[in-house]
Each structure stands twice: as C-alpha cells, then as structure tokens.
C-alpha cells in the first residue's frame, strides 16, 4: 500500500501532464525516495494510481539506471565509468572503493551502509573522475580523499 504522503506527492506530479501515465518515472522516484527501492508490490500500487498495468510500469522501472528494483543500502554510490573519467584515473578510485568497502558493483556492504553501482557518465567530465552518492556529486577525485567523503554517509 502506498502511504498518503506518497500518494499526495505522486498526484502533485499529475499536474504537469495531460495524462497520468506520464508521471511514471516521478512516481517511481517518489516511492524510491521513501523506501529506497521499488518492490513488486509497489509496482502494482503505483500502476493502479497511474491507470496503467503493472507490466507496463515494470517495463519503465527496469529501463532506467536510477530506479532500483532490488533492495539497496542506506547510501548508493554511483561511480562514473565513462571514458573521460577512465582516462583521468577512474580505476584507482574504483579499486580504493572496492578494497575499502569490500564490495563490488551491484553489491551492498554487510552493514547495509553502501551499495556500489556504475553510472554511465555524470556529465562532469571536466572534473573527472567523479562519483555521486544519493544525488550529491563529488568531483576531481583521488583515492586519498574517498574515505573522508564516505564518512559523511552513515
């Protein structure tokens, strides 16, 4: 069941479009904001609100990189693995994260604190390498500043 708050936030998005179904991405994001990820049950509930079938909504949910259809940790690290970041030292940053957190892509640390995911370019190639944690952007990274960034996220 969607909470009243979730329903209200999704219904606010309807105002932007002539058809409710256009709010699909935002509706998924609303639920993800409150529950960290989008479960099968949520898909059914949101689809009903949007007036589309759960399958249609799931085809949207699984299409986009930033919608999580599996549980994630309290904080999600998206590290840019595209060409400019790679050229500027992405691999050393990734290695540090993997060594430090003991997880690799697609995994969540055992304390549930971090999930590590790749992202296809963050549009900040002039400050490469870059990563994003829960929407906060960190740029011009070197392995030695990673730990102090991670400290902010418990």
């Amino acid at each position: 069941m969607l909470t009243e708050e979730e329903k209200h936030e999704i219904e606010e998005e309807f105002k932007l479009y002539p058809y409710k179904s256009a709010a699909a991405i935002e509706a998924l994001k609303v639920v993800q904001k409150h529950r960290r990820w989008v479960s099968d049950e949520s898909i059914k509930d949101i689809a009903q609100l949007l007036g589309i079938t759960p399958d249609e909504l799931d085809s949207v949910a699984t299409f986009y990189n930033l919608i999580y259809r599996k549980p994630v940790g309290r904080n999600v690290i998206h590290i840019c693995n595209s060409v400019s970041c790679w050229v500027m030292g992405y691999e050393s940053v990734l290695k540090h994260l993997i060594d430090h957190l003991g997880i690799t892509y697609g995994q969540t640390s055992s304390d549930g604190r971090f999930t590590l995911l790749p992202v296809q370019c963050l549009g900040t190639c002039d400050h490469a390498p870059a990563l994003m944690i829960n929407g906060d952007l960190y740029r011009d990274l070197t392995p030695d500043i990673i730990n102090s960034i991670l400290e902010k996220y418990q």
Partner: protein
Amino acid sequence: MEKILLPDIKNLHQIDVYIQNGGYEAVKKAYKRTPDEVIDEVKRSGLRGRGGAAFLTGLKWSFMPKNTDKPKYLCVNGDESEPGSFKDRQIFEFNPHALIEGITIACYAIQAKAAYVYIRGEYHNWIQMLQKALDDAYARGFVGEKMPETLGGSFSCNIYIHKGAGAYVCGEESSLMNSIEGKRGYPRVKPPFPAQFGLWGCPTTINNVETISNVPTIINKGWEWFSKIGEPRHPGTLLFGVSGHVNKPGVYELPSGVLLTDLIYKYAGGVPGNKKIKCVIPGGSSMPPLRGDQLEGVKMDAESLKAAGSAIGTGGVMVMDEDTDLVRVLARIAKFYKHESCGQCTPCREGTGWMLKTLNRIARGEGTSSDLDLLTDVAKNIEGNTICALGDAAAWPVKFFIQRFREEFEKAVKPEVSIPVANKIHSMRNTAVPLAEIKK
C-alpha cells in the same frame, strides 16, 4: 569576443540580474511580431541545432503544421548524456533565464502552449537550479497565465521540467518523447516525424538547450548580427566542453570555426607535462576520433569537421595524450554503448555486445589480427541498420579508432595463425600438435 550564452556577468542566474541586463526584452519584441516573422528571423540567422545533428533551427520550426486542432508541444532536450558532453549544464547553472526566455519565444513561434524541458536524472543539482529560475519566472509573470499582462499580446505558455532517470538513449528525440509519455525510452520509427506525430501524437518540435538559449539574443540583435559570428555556414558561438588530458578542462564559449589546436592549447591550457597528443575526440564519444598528428588547421564547426573526417556532435572535446592506451579507451566506449543500447534493434543490441567482448579480449592480450576485421565488420553491420542513431554512435568509434590507429591495434593483437587442421577445436586439445610447431 562577445559571449552570448555564458557572458561574464556575476549572478546572471538571478532573475533581477538577468532583467537588469536586458533580460525578457526579446520576448516582448517577439510578441509584437507574427509567429512567422519570428521563425523567419531565426531561419535567416542560420542558427543550427547544438544537440549533434546541426539542423537549421528556423527550418525545423517551419515544419510545424499551421492548421491543426491538436495541441502543439515544444520539447527541450537537456538529456546531455553523451560522454564528454557537459555544456547544457553550464546554461542551467549560469544563464537559466536565457533558456526560459528562449522557450517562451520558441513556443510563440510554433504556437505551442506547453514546453517540456527534459533533464537527465543524474543532474540533481542542475534540475534544482533550473526549477528555481523557472519558479521565479512564473512569479514575475514571464511564464504562465500572467504572460499577456507582463509581456503584452495575448499569448501564454507553460514550461515544465521532466526529469529522466538515467538512460542515454532518451537524448534521441523520439525516445525522449516516449520517456515524457511515461513509457520505456524506445526510439520510434521515422516517419512520421515529430512535427506531424510527436508527443502524445501531437505536432512537436524538439530543440537542444543550447540552441534555444541563443534565441533571445537573435531576436534582440537581429539575424544579421548573429550570422556574422564565426563560420558562416554554422554561425554563432558554440559551447565547447574540453576534458581529458588538458591543464584547464572546462566549458569554453567561442565562435564556431575556432581552431581545435587553439581550443586545446590557448584556452584549455595545453597538455599536462607538455606531452604529445595521441588522439582527440572532437564532439562527444560517438564522433570519429582524430589523430594527434592531424589536428593542425582543423576548425570547430559542422562543415569543417565533416571535411576533417569527424563531426561537431555536441562539442565535447576529449583529449588523450601519448601515453593513453587506445585499445582500452575504445573498450570503455564500447562498454558504454552496450550498456545504453535500448535493445530494440538486433544489430545494435547484439553487435554492441560482440564489439565489447572482442575489444575486451584484445585488451587482455588474447586477440588476433582477425579480431580487428571482425570488429570492423560488426560495426559496418550496425551502422545504418537501426531505428535510431545510437547504432551509428556505437559503430563509428569502433570503425574509426581501428582505421585511424591501426598500428596501435595491430600491436595489441597476435598475428592470426592459420591452422592446417579441419577442426579448430581439435587443435586446442592436449593431443593436438602445438600451434608453434605448425607455424614452423
């Protein structure tokens, strides 16, 4: 040189500063003319799209049907997901009102009552910046119902921000419309073109953020003024995003036709350690790369880059020095397109995977010279055989990296050994004659 998009004015993102500097005057001027006159002004200016295809903006606007009962829409493409591109970001941050004012003029020209600005989901900060500017513009009556009171005339329109959720293909115009409609971001077969059958089946124009942000200045200063900036066949200033091995990476607004070498050495500060340049991708990761020894005299505009064997794309310039491993660079680019292929067309869905596997094999030192031909062959079979340009975008880097840096790729692979046995599998068994002996 006068800058149009990113002038050196402090706090231009604030609505009061924008107004003090002549902001929202162009829209008033435009609304005193007929929509056709506005289209004509933009057509004559020679403004070309800044999203990759460099199509004439005024001409695109003129494709919108005049007599229709259906609502019309403007979509503004701020998906900006091509690796190496980060220019629209600067407009959201430093000059969002030029974009908003440009949208109100474009909407009037094509008589659209609603515009959707599509911004990629990864741009959290920049979405908030544009939303703040948009809220301010609404509050002052520059957008929305109050427009006739504030701007004169009777026209009004609404502007909405539609946030993506991470999908490169949504920068393709028909995919972008599907994404706004709340569907998977699958590109559509064209024709019908968006001007006939676009968003929700209604007439739609799609323009890039940078393109639209030029419009207020064109209205204010006239088409003639604009058409004289830079290279005549691709006039105006362009936002060049320079990244990779340069001392001062960043976004530079310069007249079109600026020399690529000036952009790298004069503006972006040259290469760290004064190393030689091995490779430059001039327009975002899908554009054909140029060799470091072929940069002299190359100008940065659509026609000149075409003549040089590449394309302007989004103006995202990626510089790689002499120590860069291009096999691994190409494998990285291939990985991107494999991940972002939407899967609709078989050549792209399967081909991008093949190319990545083959490149990874070469990067591991296990490739043979026939792999290079295989890669070129797969790339040729993707190119032109898919619904949208993502297929071409995936094929071009593979095709041209191998063609233009053949010697480096040859070095990375082993020569193909012709094995005089009927069955290659047999030759891999322990009992088979070792390859080295066959070669003798």
